[in-house]
């Protein structure tokens, strides 16, 4: 196999490559946050008016621990009653599965093509 000689990359071009990577990285984390699409937010499905430990479903041990931590029924209200919503649609689950599978298939196929070149060049010299 012919030996591949890579081109020299200028410092400016190297800097540009780094900026592209950083922009993509920051975007991957912050864009879902900015668009309010980041999951995990809890909500209080059934708020309680004039909360007491009993109304919040806390037994005496739990109430005692909350008080030791500095909470009152009013300040602990949201903390105790907030819940995640785990409902999802089949379509969204299938989309996620497809995205993961497509990603790994893409990785392995492109990698294999590149790997064959590496092995051919590495071992053709011997």
């Amino acid at each position, binding site marked *: 196999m012919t030996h*591949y000689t*890579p*081109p020299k*990359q200028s*410092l400016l071009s*190297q*800097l540009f*490559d*780094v900026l*592209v*990577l950083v922009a*993509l*990285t*920051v975007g*991957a*984390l912050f864009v*879902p*946050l900015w668009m309010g699409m*980041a*999951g*995990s937010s809890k909500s209080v499905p059934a708020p309680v008016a004039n909360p007491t430990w009993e109304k919040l*479903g*806390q*037994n005496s*041990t*739990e109430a005692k*621990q*909350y008080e030791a*931590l500095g909470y009152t029924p009013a300040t*602990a209200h*949201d*903390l*105790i009653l*907030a*819940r*995640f919503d*785990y409902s999802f649609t089949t379509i*969204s689950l299938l*989309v*996620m599965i497809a*995205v*993961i599978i497509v*990603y*790994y298939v*893409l*990785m*392995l196929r*492109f*990698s*294999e*093509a*590149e790997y*064959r070149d*590496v*092995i*051919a*060049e*590495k*071992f*053709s010299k011997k």
Partner: protein
Amino acid sequence: MTNFDITSSKIDGMGPHGTNVGLLRVLGPAHVWALGVGIVLVGEYMGWNFAVGKGGAYAALIACWFAGILYTCVAMIDSEVTSTVAAAGGQYTQAKHIVGPLMAFNVGLYLVFAYTMLEAANAITAGYLFSVVATMNGFQGALDQRPFIIMCIMFLAWLNYRGVLATLTFNLVITAIAFIAIIVLFLGTSGVFGGGIMQHASLMEGAASLPYGWIGVLAAMHFGLWYYLGIEGTTQAAEEVRSPARALPFGTLAGIMTLLIAATLTWYVSTGVLPWEFLGDGVNGSVAPLFDTARLSGSNALIWLLGFGTLFATLASANGCINDASRAWFAMGRDKYLPGWFGAVHPKYRTPYRAIVFLVPIALIFALGAPLDQVITFSILSGLLEYTFMPLNIIMFRKKWPLDSIKRGYEHPFHPLPAYTLLALCAITFFAVFLGYGTQLVAMIGFYIVVSLWFHFWRYRFVNRGAQFTMPWPKPKGY
């Protein structure tokens, strides 16, 4: 068996092109243990408790043990491969030699982002801890945590810049103290020596046992990973240990055993004292659960010990993360997967100093600009993608280089059972992440697809083809 023996002390296949020029070989097995456990132990001090919030205390225990199985598979597989591919970059270098360049580029990025995000999470926790201590000492109002976050990252980056031996010796000492603090808390509160304060039965009765039912158990697997995330980072020290074939498997496997003990003790003491809703909310409730447990113990000695334990664990983890992320970034720069400028070693300190300095502002952006659970999720997702790669990696490794073709420093047992177990547990964890953070998951994979296309169609032109294969191995079977 061929003459290719990577475990030989006479053949050096670790450095670029089989040379010994580069990073300094000064570390022993204890440093490897300190690197692995040091990165992870903070997971017991903060973050794991989000698993309680996702499914309740029992769900977090089930997640703790299933994640323990996942990471035992990771440690076994990693120990075998890394005892033969002992070079900086860890799994990145493994992927480069076994799967191919594009996979290697992705794995390198998984490593950098998993560790940099973990570093950011550590700095956030350290900042929080300073604010709690200030409040406990009578400070009025809200303390600005940002200067502490910045100082924490800058100090540890400086330590890493100055040399790996001092960095990881520092880690060894503070990690040992943080681990001992967990043991002391368990002994002091569990009632082993009398006077226990555990109240599991009344804190976990009725609806508190499994508040979301079994789907909560699945959801808890997401943050169950946090008990152990980062143990695979031991491989990043491969080019700096004196005897990689011995020190890496020993340090890694001792590390996972330490963590299994620490994780179970942590769950036990925290769930026996803190109500699950408070414990499970790591943002508005218990940011540092072991410290909160100590606060309720009534013992000032335990409060101080766990306060220092939490601080040391966050520093040890951030320190190890800077070490690992910079090695991965450096290794990619050295191979021109990233601009070659990053592939430089400091002439005096023999550290990848440009990579260390470059990653400081990246960590700061995330530590100062994103909430803790989002930063942790970003780290977990990168880790999860990496763990999914590992079974594929070991299956291909054994196929291309069977046991009789290269001598291994360690051969993991029951192959391919650990690989398939790991793959199945990764699938479950993907589903767990989907149950609440599906958007981030898709955004993250979208990011990796875009950067992969960028790498394949643009960046790869700057990479030497054959020269990137640096191990003195025979030609792989089937090529």
